[in-house]
């Protein structure tokens, strides 16, 4: 049985290391904040200018001057801090943010990512995604393994305009956890509960590297 969005987020949350600063993109990545393992302290950065982002406010307590990069009203935890956009991307570009989790339309076996533009469709812009993927040491892509047409989003080469090259280190989908090897290729690390290696092979178009034993995720 493949994972739902919350399952993907929960699996990614297992990657968090105590003391990390983390930037979560819009969509599935945002859900990661709901699954922080016990005993782990991390701080969430939102690139519009806050560190120490808290949950959504109570109804009636929302503040127009306090939003996240998705333009949603948020709260600030004790110890939070606000800063300008130039300082915010200094944190990102300077690799002070240890982990970036973001969604993607396509990921290639050499770590390229495409997630901002579909030729012929209305282009909204890359926002902070190009800075994030070009900078972070740790980039985890959170996405469904295939698109709505059932085609693999894990490819030999991206067909869409790129957001960044050679940058994704790990991909967590509804079917599997894969590491992208420095020499290229998706190395299968874990299967979603009840998902077979065959199912994953079938859903992956890029080079998939499969060891004899592929453990099932423990969520």
């Amino acid at each position, binding site marked *: 049985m493949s994972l739902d969005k919350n399952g993907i987020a929960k699996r990614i949350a297992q990657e968090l290391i105590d003391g990390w600063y983390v930037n979560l993109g819009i969509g599935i990545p945002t859900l990661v904040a709901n699954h922080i393992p016990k005993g782990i302290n991390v701080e969430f950065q*939102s*690139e*519009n*200018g*806050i560190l120490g982002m808290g*949950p*959504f*406010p*109570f*109804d*009636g*307590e*929302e*503040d*127009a*001057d*306090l*939003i*996240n*990069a*998705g*333009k*949603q*009203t*948020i709260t*600030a935890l004790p110890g939070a801090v*606000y*800063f*300008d*956009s*130039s300082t*915010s*991307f200094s944190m*990102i*570009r300077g690799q002070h943010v240890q982990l970036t989790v973001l969604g993607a339309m396509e990921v290639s076996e050499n770590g*390229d990512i495409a997630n901002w533009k579909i030729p012929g469709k*209305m*282009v*909204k*812009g*890359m*926002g*902070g*995604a*190009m*800075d994030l993927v*070009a*900078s972070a040491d740790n980039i985890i892509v959170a996405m469904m393994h295939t698109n709505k047409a059932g085609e693999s989003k894990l490819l030999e080469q991206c067909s869409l*305009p*790129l*957001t*960044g*090259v*050679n940058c994704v280190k790990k991909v967590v989908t509804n079917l599997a956890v894969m590491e992208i090897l420095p020499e290229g290729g998706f190395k299968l690390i874990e299967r979603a509960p009840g998902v077979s290696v065959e199912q994953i092979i079938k859903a992956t178009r890029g080079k998939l590297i499969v060891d004899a034993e592929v453990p099932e995720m423990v969520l």
Partner: protein
Amino acid sequence: MINKEVKSALEACQGIKSGMTLMLGGFGLCGIPENCISALVEMKVNDLTCISNNAGVDDFGLGLLLKQRQIKKMISSYVGENDEFERQMLSGELEVDLIPQGSLAERCRAGGAGIPAFFTPAGYGTEVGEGKEVREFNGKPHILEQALLADFAIVKAWKGDTAGNLIYKGTARNFNPPMAMAGKITIAEVEELVQPGELDPNHVHTPGIFVQRIFKGQKFEKRIEQRTVITKDH
């Protein structure tokens, strides 16, 4: 102290002419200079190049200028939250230059800081990097990005004094400080305008040297784009 107080948004915007390049602070609808945008609507200047992270919504923020076709070109990182923008862009009436958000912020700061160009890894290998100089540092390819400057930078702050010193609130700070540095003339609209000495000199975000005109905004709607809340019952 040098007194930079003007009495209204219209007075602050005096000298803004059709064809000029403007920077406008804000992220989404948060921390945008609402009062000056209204003045620009009233002034009907057009053919503007607007450098702003976003382009407002149909009936608020830069959307108001788009509706009157006052904008020739947008330089932004993320746009299209409004239909009129989409229509003008697809029909080719509106030119759009999309820039990675961090590069946009740093290019504004660089403009204000007298740094004409700098290297960044953002956009390398993508269409943003096309035609730009590439150089490797520490084994990693970077592209050369140029500074941005504007005829007028228009920012919104929480508190200010008549010497032009500004303090922002929460995440309404965003692009306002780097853009305040990069205007040949910088206009600040504030919610509260005080006398020099009333702001703690340790807590000023934008030193007055970067600001040429300041006024107390007549009205701040501060519209919320995505109201996300949790109910207390939970």
